[in-house]
């Protein structure tokens, strides 16, 4: 986004400006032609929620998510979900957000309480909240976002408030730990860390008591955008809108100095000087992202030999082998950025560009539509500026995240292997591929939901599913649900394809068919179709209907069903419906060995 006002929705945010310009900003966001996903969020508050929803709406529109909101009456969060939830049920929320604060703790400790009495109050609070959450899971089948509690604006016992069992600060710490434990044990439950947000804002500034007494807002009015932004990050992450990697400049971004001019020995990185320490900590911060499955790449104006020498600096934390693609040349950085995205099979806007030079940031912003460019200033601020932008908000960890860099590297090896074969089939055979294509099983539910929310290119219908919905279709016998896992001699690619079809009489309709682009042209999509047809035959099915719904990103599969031998039934604008008579179907692939 190059529009300065819309950049307020990224980092840094001028909260007061955003509040004032909310109407203008909303109109600008709605004017975008970008296809948006639609979701329903019920905000059940223990304090006023109006402006919070207004701001949340803006942040989510910015991430391409259009939300229909439901707000409960003031402070009716408990009653609404527990006793009087017909309207809420009819609303069918995808997400319920309980916006509660320390004002909503009913059983606060009293100075006369025994430890047992306080423990009882603690479990009472936990029970009250967990009842609400369970009710959401059971009756609304939705995802829950719950605030934890911020620290209060006074401490009756002073410092001892934190350590004494009768202290409210101590009680809140224990409550927050209990909420975190619940989050660790439940998949469709996410904590909004109000405690951190308030601390980060500054607790004294956060607790603007006139905003509470006058309007019943639990925080200062100008802090509302930060609160909304935090929730928006959880939501956008759940619906696959996280960024996927970094594209990093080198000189004065990863180290102090210019390697080509100053020489490796004179670069500032390590523990010698203040500047060197700042860069070393920044490198350490970036390297930690590898564990989250975030891909690191280099885009630098340098001779490649100098770039590598800099990355091999003995005091450096990031090494050449941490990078997937290294572009060190004299081409425009926007061109390098596009090429990196292309080589990774990702969209350029899914990569975060980090460069100390404003001119380079500008060229990437202007040349690449929707480019994501970090607003960095000085090395001592880099970490905070990137961290607060929330590009990689973690909502779920899957094993694949931990192994992603390895997988992309194995891919690079495959590309090299491909070049040494004259015939593509010979190359595919040399990969010794094995696939597991089976009905959804419990261990993969999280990964499957994750894939439905983040696959954009090889995705026929771009239907998004929450994990609870995936679990529901998996149990329903009217559905055929298949996941595909691909293993080859370079490594395990993990679950890479998902197909969901529902049966209607003697027909199957394909609701969802997606595949991760990293296994494109390996025969996996054909193997998935072969397996679907096999399963369909077992059910005595006659025809399979395939649907292609066009988006800005899925042109690569516009002709997929045609290539698979389906016949066109209907065209509506750019959307198409296809039909396959399965009697005539012959298996499409034989190179991948599919496990029985």
């Amino acid at each position, binding site marked *: 986004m190059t529009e300065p006002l819309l950049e307020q929705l990224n980092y840094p945010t001028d909260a*007061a400006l955003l*509040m*004032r*310009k*909310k*109407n*203008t900003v909303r109109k600008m966001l709605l004017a975008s032609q970008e296809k948006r996903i639609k979701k329903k969020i019920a905000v059940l508050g223990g304090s*006023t929620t*109006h*402006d919070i929803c207004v701001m949340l709406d803006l942040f989510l529109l910015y991430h391409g998510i259009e939300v229909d909101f439901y707000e409960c009456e003031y402070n009716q969060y408990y009653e609404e979900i527990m006793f009087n939830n017909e309207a809420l049920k009819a609303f069918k929320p995808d997400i319920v957000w309980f916006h509660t604060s320390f004002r909503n703790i009913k059983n606060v400790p009293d100075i006369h309480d025994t430890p047992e009495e306080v423990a009882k109050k603690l479990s009472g609070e936990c029970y009250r909240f967990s009842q609400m959450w369970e009710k959401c899971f059971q009756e609304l089948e939705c995802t829950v976002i719950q605030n934890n509690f911020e620290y209060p604006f006074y401490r009756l016992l002073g410092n001892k408030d934190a350590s004494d069992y009768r202290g409210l600060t101590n009680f809140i710490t224990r409550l927050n730990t209990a909420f975190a434990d619940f989050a660790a044990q439940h998949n469709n439950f996410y904590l909004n860390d109000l405690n951190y947000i308030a601390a980060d804002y500054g607790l004294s500034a956060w607790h603007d008591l*006139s*905003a509470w*007494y*006058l*309007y019943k*807002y639990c925080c200062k*009015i*100008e802090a509302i955008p930060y609160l909304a932004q935090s929730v928006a990050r959880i939501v956008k992450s759940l619906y696959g809108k996280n960024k996927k990697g970094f594209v990093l400049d080198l000189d004065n971004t990863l180290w102090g100095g210019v390697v080509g001019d100053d020489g490796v020995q004179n670069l500032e990185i390590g523990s010698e000087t203040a500047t060197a320490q700042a860069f070393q900590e920044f490198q350490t911060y970036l390297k930690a992202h590898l564990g989250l499955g975030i891909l690191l790449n280099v885009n630098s104006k340098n001779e490649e030999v100098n770039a590598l020498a800099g990355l091999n600096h003995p005091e450096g934390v990031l090494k050449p082998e941490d990078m997937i693609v290294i572009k060190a040349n004299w081409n425009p950085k926007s061109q390098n950025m596009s090429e990196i995205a292309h080589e990774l099979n990702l969209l350029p806007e899914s990569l975060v560009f980090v460069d100390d030079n404003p001119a380079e940031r500008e060229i990437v912003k202007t040349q690449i539509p929707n480019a994501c460019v970090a607003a960095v200033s000085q090395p001592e601020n880099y970490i905070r500026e990137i961290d607060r932008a929330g590009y990689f908000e973690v909502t779920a960890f899957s094993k694949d995240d931990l192994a992603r860099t390895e997988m992309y590297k194995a891919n690079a090896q495959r590309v090299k292997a491909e070049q040494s074969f004259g015939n593509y089939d010979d190359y595919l055979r040399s990969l010794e591929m094995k696939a597991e294509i089976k009905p959804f099983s419990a261990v993969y539910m999280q990964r499957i939901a994750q894939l439905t929310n983040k696959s954009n290119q090889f995705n026929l219908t771009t239907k998004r599913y929450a994990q609870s919905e995936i679990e529901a279709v998996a149990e329903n016998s009217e559905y055929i649900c298949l996941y595909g896992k691909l293993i080859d001699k370079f490594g395990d690619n993990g679950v890479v394809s998902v197909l969901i079809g529902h049966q209607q009489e003697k027909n199957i309709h394909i609701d969802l068919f997606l595949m991760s682009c990293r296994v494109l042209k390996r025969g996996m999509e054909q193997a998935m179709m072969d397996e679907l047809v096999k399963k369909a035959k077992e059910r005595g099915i006659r025809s399979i209907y395939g649907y292609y719904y066009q988006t800005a990103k899925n042109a690569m599969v516009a002709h997929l069903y045609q290539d698979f031998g389906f016949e066109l039934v209907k065209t509506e604008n750019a959307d198409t419906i296809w039909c396959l008579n399965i009697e005539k179907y012959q298996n499409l692939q034989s190179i991948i060995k599919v496990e029985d």
Partner: protein
Amino acid sequence: MNQAEVYQQLNEIFKENLDLDEVNLTASTTADDIEGWDSLAHIGLIAAIEQQFGIRFVMKEIVGLHNVGEMVELILSKLNA
């Protein structure tokens, strides 16, 4: 800043916050006279006024306001303090 300038800036703030094309505030204008000026919108208006004029109201001042004229007097008294 004089009274007329305060009115002019207030008109702009009201237009922007309430998403209206035209606002003409006078001393006797109250919330009943302006479309969309409800208790929720009032919060945003107060915050925007504080920001625009670089002033802060205390709670007693906010609850004591009865019309735009009183608000303008309050703003001017803070600016000239």
